[in-house]
């Protein structure tokens, strides 16, 4: 009923090539975006912004970046946390070392630096594949951890190794309230999601997917593996670097290398796998699952009256069980569940 497409005819190529060819989808997403921009800042509490919405948005962006690499191009990476750290520290350095550097430019430059590092660590992917590549990218993670802990220059000679960013400005708009920060992140995420969606629909995205599905066959039909793999690494690291810079600048305000530890890499990889490999929507689902669910379980546990230690242990157990459950029920992730739901709704209420 809800998804009946009767009468929706595509009369031009442009209409056929839209991101959301079905009208219901289009309006739903438009309404969602509008609500996110207009409704949410009015109703959400400060706790919602700071503890849930902002981390969710930023980690969605990072998951989006990782999904391009892992989901679309098939190159497993465990260096995500490291690339986020590169983005954050590079952006920090641009901000403190260049007078009058605008925050947005610093964040984007952070992304560019992460892109450079990402391409550098992506070079081994030309020779090694699968699990071996995962180990090679792990080196990126450890190298970044080491560099930001040890090389004092990166932290502007901070004695404790912790750096902080003071207030952010964007064209005269001072970003200090939680709602401002949320809108700032939302802008970034929306823009980057749009870019990602269009990239994966274009010829470059098809090259990535061809590499993922079978690299030898892809090379035979004329796709250059070097170009395809390195662009995937570049785009993915750029996204992740920007997410890292936002994580430091907007979410934490002051951070240390531990904020981008190996745990973060695993967390993001889980987001991508649980959300759905090779799906833009899935990155958001995955981020929501990993960010919001533990907090919900924890709050619920405490509300029910468990003591904090027990609640925290239960959260771990339930969360772990849910991950296993979801992967058994639907190995292709939450995004696949979503599309199954849509398929069913197309036939509802008269399945045939």
């Amino acid at each position, binding site marked *: 009923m809800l998804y009946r497409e009767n009468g929706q005819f595509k009369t031009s190529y442009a209409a056929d090539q839209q991101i959301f060819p079905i009208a219901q989808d289009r309006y739903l997403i438009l309404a969602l975006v509008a609500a996110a921009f207009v409704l949410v800042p009015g109703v959400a*509490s*400060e*706790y*919602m912004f*700071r*503890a849930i919405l902002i*981390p969710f948005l930023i980690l969605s962006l990072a998951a989006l970046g990782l999904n391009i690499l892992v989901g679309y191009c098939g190159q497993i990476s465990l260096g995500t946390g490291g690339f986020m750290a590169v983005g954050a520290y590079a952006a920090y350095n641009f901000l*403190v070392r260049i007078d009058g550097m605008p925050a947005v430019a610093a964040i984007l430059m952070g992304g560019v630096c992460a892109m450079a590092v990402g391409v550098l660590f992506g070079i081994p992917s030309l020779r090694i594949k699968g699990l071996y590549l995962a180990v090679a990218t792990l080196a990126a993670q450890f190298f970044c951890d080491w560099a930001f*802990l040890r090389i004092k220059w990166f932290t502007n000679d901070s*004695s*404790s*190794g*912790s750096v*902080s960013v*003071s207030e952010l400005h964007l064209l005269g708009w001072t970003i*200090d309230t939680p709602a401002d920060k949320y809108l700032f992140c939302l802008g970034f995420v929306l823009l980057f999601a749009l870019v990602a969606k269009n990239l994966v629909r274009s010829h470059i995205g098809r090259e990535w997917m061809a590499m993922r599905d079978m690299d030898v066959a892809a090379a035979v039909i004329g796709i250059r593996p070097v170009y395809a793999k390195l662009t995937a690494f570049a785009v993915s690291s750029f996204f992740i670097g920007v997410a890292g810079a936002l994580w430091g600048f907007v979410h*934490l*305000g*002051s*951070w*240390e290398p*531990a*904020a981008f*530890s190996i745990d973060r890499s695993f967390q993001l990889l889980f987001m991508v796998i649980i959300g759905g490999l090779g799906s833009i929507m899935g990155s958001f689902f995955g981020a929501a699952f990993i960010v919001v669910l533990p*907090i*919900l379980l*924890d*709050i*619920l546990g*405490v*509300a029910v009256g468990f*003591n*904090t*230690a027990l*609640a*925290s*242990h239960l959260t771990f157990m339930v969360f772990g069980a849910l991950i296993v459950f979801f992967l058994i*029920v*639907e190995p292709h992730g939450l995004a696949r*569940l979503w599309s*199954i*739901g849509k398929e*069913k*709704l197309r036939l*509802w209420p008269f399945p045939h």
Partner: protein
Amino acid sequence: MKLKTLVVGTAAAAALIGATFSTPALAQAKEQFFPVLVYRTGPYAPNGVPFANGYVDYLKLVNARGGINGVKLVFEECETGYATDKGTECYERLKGKNGGATVFQPLSTGITFALTEKAPVDKIPLITAGYGRSESQDGMVFKWNFPIAGTYWVAADALIQQLGKKEGGLDKLKGKKITLVYHDSPFGKEPIPLLQERAKLHGFELAMLPVAHPGVEQKSTWLQIRQSRPDYILLWGWGVMNSTALKEAVATGYPREKMYGVWWAGAEPDVKDVGMGAKGYNAVTMQHGTETNSKIAQDILKELHAKNLGTGPKEEVGQVLYMRGLMSAMFAVEGVKRAQERFGKGKVMLGEQARWGYENLALDQKKLDALGFAGVMRPVSTSCADHMGANWARVHTWDGAKWAFSSDWLQADESILKPMVRAAADKYAAEKKIERRTPADCQS
């Protein structure tokens, strides 16, 4: 997956979300809210649990005695697992509850750094009793941070003084090799500037060996120690890192008598596994040590544990970290009591008013005796310029079964500390574009 299951699942999830976020705003009178950030799970839990128990027990004790001039305390724990992001989430979750948080004690240097940015905005004071950022002693820049009764710089300074005493004068440290084995995090790096300053002053050789989180991987560190044979080791460790270091010292044959820990590395859980192997190991204490016989510990046993109201096992009462929690909670409560003297007795204090209390703490010997802290600690008196209020420390030594004091009271050398605090605070103020507070602001 069937559509029905999907729909039911979604509905259940939505109900769960709704239930969680629609916590009713209860209007309660005469209740002072103390959020409690703890870590009872994770790699540092063995040390975090006694602290949390002590903290909560003190709040319970105050309530059992009728609250702060009749104002009951309410408290709620939030589990941080010693992770910075979870800590900030807890902060956001608790800061507005029950009429607003009185004070936060982050219990982690990383969380302290993150909250230092947020506290001035939300107008909630932060107490970091004995830890946190050392330059926050300067209240003229750090209006909302209170490292009451000690910072890592005080601890490091006291340790160097103790080493000097052992050698027969600070000048005898010249040419000695002192190695800092530290937890590779802001916490572990905090003492480095002071030690470097002291090294310059006395001419000892300072080597620094970082140990990665959580601290069980120390083989290479101790290989280096075996090679360089330092005269003294300062251990800036936490949790499992401490007992590992002691075991490695036993294996390497490094004399434990020459090892000095920070106060996070000088409690029962750190040495218990090593037992006799740790005999002779020293650690600095920020004033108190194991105080099982102190009046306050006895009071808690009598008024809480005897009535089955206590938190955690009875044997823990009076241990080093338990006492630490107790003392931290005492500061939190005494600040509110002090604030009531100005803003009205028997009233609920807002965060801003409590801040005044923490800035004007005047815990003299008489008050301490009345609270049951006689012999546990020295008087503390904070001011607008000095948010620390006392800079005393002692060293205690593990004799294989218990901790016992092995030094006199040591006072950190203000002539060294003051310029460092000032310089670091000025640097912070310049970075953040904060103006130093004026004397008029001190009255606020």
